[in-house]
């Protein structure tokens, strides 16, 4: 299998083979992260820029570690410290960065389509680190990697995604990726947070959390925000937690070997209780570890693509 894509803008653009190729490649890189010398010279001399218009420690750090473990040089730019504050457009920022010859730029932005716009403007590779509510492809890839590692397969599973689905790029990317496989995807959350027409993507909707997670193999909890853009979607955090917070005894409704996932950062006590976050079913920390491996794989494949 050959990798030909210049950018990773979303799961939408990937075929099933390409998704599996990333996962298989990530396997080799995971091993690097577990050794004493967590470095290989593969991307030596390459420049990786992270351009984050939205705050994020987790994703940015993960990309930075991934790049450094491949011996690349990294530069971090965050919107608050950059000329963005002075009114520079995305296009101008991109062109300026391009003049410094980066090999790959990872962009996180609050608006859907920003990475796509960037990819049209610049010649270097673009990785979407999250664009508004649209996609977060490396998150979905590391989620699938984790599921596959724990369950041995991505087919025949019941996967439940819980939370603010309508605003979640993590939910979208995961749904797009899982559609290639033979698993049941259930979306659970308050009706105000489930987009109408989502069933057209092949997922089932269930508002009752206990019902939704019955016999689940995977439960993915999403972070909750009470308000977005001045519109209330739920009356209060407390109410959300009562009906959609995952507690230990609720988990007993799932399969015995269920895994609990969360893209982070967690609102402990809101969507996920301590005894679940730290409990035996949680793979949340492994997701973080896998994130570095998956991002190493993505960097490796993009920069080594067939010209």
């Amino acid at each position, binding site marked *: 299998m050959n990798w030909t894509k210049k950018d990773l803008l979303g799961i939408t653009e990937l075929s099933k083979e390409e998704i599996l190729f990333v996962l298989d490649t990530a396997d080799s890189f995971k091993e690097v992260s577990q050794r004493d*010398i967590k470095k*290989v010279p593969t991307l030596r001399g390459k420049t990786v820029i992270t351009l984050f218009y939205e705050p994020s420690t987790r994703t940015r750090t993960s990309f930075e570690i991934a790049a450094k473990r491949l011996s690349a040089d990294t530069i971090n730019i965050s919107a608050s410290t950059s000329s963005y504050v002075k009114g520079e457009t995305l296009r101008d920022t991109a062109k300026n960065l391009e003049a410094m010859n980066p090999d790959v730029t990872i962009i996180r932005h609050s608006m859907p389509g920003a990475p796509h716009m960037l990819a049209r403007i610049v010649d270097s590779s673009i990785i979407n680190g999250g664009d508004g509510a649209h996609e977060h492809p490396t998150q979905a890839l590391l989620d699938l990697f984790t599921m596959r590692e724990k369950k041995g397969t991505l087919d025949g599973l019941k996967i439940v995604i819980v939370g603010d689905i309508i605003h979640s790029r993590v939910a979208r990317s995961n749904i797009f990726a899982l559609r290639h496989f033979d698993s049941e995807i259930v979306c659970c959350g308050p009706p105000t947070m489930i987009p109408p027409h989502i069933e057209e993507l092949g997922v089932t909707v269930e508002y009752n959390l206990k019902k939704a997670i019955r016999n689940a193999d995977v439960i993915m909890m999403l972070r909750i925000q009470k308000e977005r853009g001045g519109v209330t979607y739920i009356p209060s955090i407390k109410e959300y937690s009562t009906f959609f917070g995952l507690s230990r005894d609720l988990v007993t409704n799932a399969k015995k070997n269920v895994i609990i996932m969360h893209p982070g950062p967690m609102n402990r006590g809101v969507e996920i209780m301590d005894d679940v976050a730290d409990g035996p079913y949680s793979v949340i920390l492994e997701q973080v570890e896998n994130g570095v491996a998956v991002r190493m794989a993505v960097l490796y494949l993009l920069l*080594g693509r067939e010209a």
Partner: protein
Amino acid sequence: MKNKVLLDKKAVERTINRIAHEIIEKNKGVEELRLIGIRTRGVHLAQRIKQTIEGIEHISLPLGVLDITMYRDDVFKLKSPELKKTDIPFDVNNITAILVDDVMQTGRTTRAAIDAIMDLGRPKRIQLAVLVDRGDRELPIHPDYAGIIHSANPEEDVMVRLSEVDGKDEVIVVAS
């Protein structure tokens, strides 16, 4: 367009046998030895050498598998960037690592393999065993054990075929 056979099945077997004996002799025993096969055919050769040595010395010899793609100096010119896993189930520190590969030519693969092992630890020494040395070095690296030495022309390809991968055992020269 005929392929020239350098080693047939019997000859391959004898050569591997000889290499195994040489390894034991040069190292005066096998206690500190660890075999590391370089993917892909080096792994099968290492497996065969391992079995032969174990048959002689009656001692279990650990085997490691090394994928050197990440260390190659031409990694981004490869036709396929596919990675295979490196799996070294022993401590690399203070051992005598015997790298095993099928064909040695420029020496670059060996350089990559040495770098890879050094990132895993500090062996006491590293030795190299190859089934075929076809000359044409681009780096000052030499095998400690060579099955056969054959100076091939630039238009020729020396190929090792092993039954585990290719269905038969032989070493042939092919016009490339």
